């Protein structure tokens, strides 16, 4: 089965009640697509797509970045001292 591992941190981990999740990868799934799947699974994450940044395999990526089997996707809430300007 082709899956990706997702890691959640800080407030997003608190809201979802988990720090890790596994998602099945559909055709052409992107980082934001992974987030949409998690929102269905954890409705308390609704609305956070406007502030979250994505990382794939420990590198910041745009929301449109494709996710491949075995990738580690991280949902990065705004960090303590910064704006979210990329």
């Amino acid at each position, binding site marked *: 089965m082709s899956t990706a591992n997702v890691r959640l941190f800080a407030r997003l981990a608190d809201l979802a009640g988990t720090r890790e999740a596994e998602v099945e990868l559909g055709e052409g799934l992107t980082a934001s697509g992974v987030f949409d799947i998690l929102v269905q699974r954890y409705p308390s994450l609704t609305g956070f797509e406007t502030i979250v940044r994505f*990382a794939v395999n*420990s590198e910041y990526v745009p929301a449109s970045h494709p996710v491949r089997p075995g990738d580690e996707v991280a949902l990065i809430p705004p*960090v*303590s001292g910064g*704006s979210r300007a990329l």
Partner: protein
Amino acid sequence: MLFEVTADELDPGRVVEHVRRDDAGAIALFYGVVRDHNRGRKVMHLEYDAYPEMATKVMQRIADEVKERFNIAETAIQHRTGRLEVGETSLLVAVSSAHRKEAFEACHALVDRLKEEVPIWKKEVFEGGEEWIEGDASAPGT
């Protein structure tokens, strides 16, 4: 270069010795310390969460970028995670350079960039509640 994310107490001596070099006449060392107040509230303690594998990579990238802008010899960064009490050290950034001006400037630039980009978050536990501190962004439902 030294980049660490650790639950252990930070070690300023080790950070400074890491950047000490014979061709560097200046070492700047920044301490980030847990403050007892924020936004008019009395802070009881902080809890830091981190994505350590990515945090150390981002530290490395930022250090490389700052090294290109300033003529610095060596850098070392340590960030603590977990529960920190008021007065404890959460961040150490050391920079060595031939001369003091560049050491100060590079250290300042490094700290600013780290706070914007390194995936480490703090939850403030204050009198009467707790809250994740999320920079300038406003979140839904707050």
